[in-house]
């Protein structure tokens, strides 16, 4: 009796795990079918539940006017965001983890505030400011806004990463002949590099996925998300699906690459 309830509980558990996995994967699979089907199939009914491995939709996507430029813009913006958010954010993360200084509380508040703010809304006044400074409709201008989005995360994540490196290691390096700078480059940096890479990738994904600010701030130099959003009403289904697929692929790879750090990063960013 007891063994029976235990095994049925076991079954229920396994079944729910599989069900929840299916819940995540099946919609992605549907998108994959549509992407790997010819435009005609995509618009036909009923749908087959196996892909026909036709690259017609993807070819159409690649040939669609402006699409490849949008893809290139997306990569550029995300790449710049990644570099800027780490270069600007990591020093602050280091300062938070290593020093107690007057104003630290205020600074943390500023960082948390940005996270609690509907940031894409700032794109509205920035549009005006950018027109004045000639940054409007440029890849760099958008990257600046996306960096604002990514910075709270990069500060908090690098803060937690640096906190994971015992101060004792740095102190040992100082007593062994290092300055603050050489102790950082010889000891802290090699230990932190994988984590920094993960948080850089995180910043990349934030920028890559951002829709609202991208749509507001770019007109000619649209990113992929902005381009797709703008053409939602008019573009044919197979274009939407192929575009959606291209949007998803890097995300899949990135999440896989940073999976080890995802939890460590959030564990401390919590506090």
């Amino acid at each position, binding site marked *: 009796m007891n063994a029976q309830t235990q095994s049925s509980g076991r079954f229920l558990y396994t079944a729910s795990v599989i069900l929840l996995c299916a819940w995540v994967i099946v919609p992605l699979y549907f998108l994959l079918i549509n992407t790997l089907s010819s435009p005609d199939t995509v618009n036909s009914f009923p749908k087959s539940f196996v892909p026909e491995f036709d690259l017609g939709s993807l070819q159409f996507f690649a040939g669609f006017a402006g699409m490849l430029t949008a893809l290139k813009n997306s990569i550029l913006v995300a790449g710049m965001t990644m570099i800027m958010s780490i270069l600007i954010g990591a020093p602050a993360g280091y300062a938070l983890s290593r020093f107690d200084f007057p104003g630290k509380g205020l600074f943390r508040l500023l960082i948390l505030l940005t996270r609690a703010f509907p940031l894409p809304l700032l794109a509205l006044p920035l549009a005006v400011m950018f027109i004045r400074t000639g940054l409007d409709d440029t890849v760099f201008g958008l990257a600046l806004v996306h960096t604002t989005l990514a910075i709270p995360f990069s500060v908090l994540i690098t803060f937690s990463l640096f906190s994971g490196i*015992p101060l*004792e*290691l740095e*102190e*040992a*390096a*100082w*007593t*062994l*002949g*290092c*300055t603050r700078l*050489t102790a950082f480059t*010889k*000891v802290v940096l*090699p*230990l932190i590099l994988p984590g920094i890479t993960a948080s850089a990738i995180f910043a990349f994904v934030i920028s890559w996925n951002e829709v609202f600010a991208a749509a507001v701030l770019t007109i000619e130099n649209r990113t992929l998300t902005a381009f797709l959003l703008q053409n939602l009403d008019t573009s044919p289904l197979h274009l939407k699906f192929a575009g959606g697929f291209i949007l998803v692929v890097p995300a899949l790879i990135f999440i896989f690459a940073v999976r080890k750090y995802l939890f460590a990063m959030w564990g401390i960013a919590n506090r």
Partner: protein
Amino acid sequence: MAVIEIKNVAKRFGEYQALHDINLTIADQEFMVLLGASGCGKSTLLRIIAGLETATEGEVWIGGKRIDHLPPKDRGIAMVFQNYAVFPHLTVFENIGFGLRMQKLPNDEVTRRVERTAGLMHIDQLLKRYSGELSGGQRQRVAVARALAMEPDVILMDEPLSNLDALLRMEMRAELKGVLAESNTTAIYVTHDQVEAMSMADRISVMHEGRIVQAASPIDVYRDPAERFVAGFIGNPPMNFLDATPQGAGQFLVAGQSFAGPSANKPLEFAIRPEDMTLSETGLTATAKVVEPLGAHLLVTCEVEGKLFRAVLDSDLRVSMGDTLTLAPMQDRIRWFDPDTQIAVK
């Protein structure tokens, strides 16, 4: 030559005064232990000498040179940390050679020194390993070897053995003492473990609430505590205390018994170590409360005039709970303290 002079060093963290006006001179090649409970300021003092912390006031001199304004790397010190601080991304070889590489020594000199110190610490078989593949004891050896390889004037150790298990700690204690004696360096060693302090030190500085209470050889600290705090801190179990009333002419009444004491004509505290008493016909009357046979001897916790009083007796004796004992203190081991100033009275 590396004499260390600490002159009027004080340290405040905001409102909290961690160190009060510390003055201490440590002779060349001396093994000095800073002993105290956690929070007494011993680690802070060590870190000020290392340059990891800045003193609020005072000066630190090493080898006749004032160094308190210098960064750690320019002080001629090496340090062993409590958690060893072995760099996880470097092999044992590169860990030991880290400081030498920073000094840009030629490769063959680095190899020579690394191999010599690794041999000294018996880790020459581990040179290619990473810290993740080492046991706690092995990491400890790497940390010491790394400090020794620097051939420093002064070696600073912050509770280096506290993370090892008891048996390993005893083994490392003896080994460390031997290695350091041969290296001719001045050593400052921080610990809260009095056995470690007694067994290793040339001199012990007992610290309490940010002050050095007594700095003397281990046997002096044990036999002649300068303050009541030291008497109650050193020794396991520590000294017993009883109130003493003056009877004039250097005589004091303690628990109904008369003892010869200092000439001071005021109430004092009588102190005696638990092992400095024998069972006798005349002496202090004590009621046994707890009897603990510890093998080598018998620890009896008693009450004398309603006060807790411990005696360490011969293990052959038969003592049971509730027995009345007459304990005779050895006259030359009795110490006296002034209850107002807490200082020893001769």
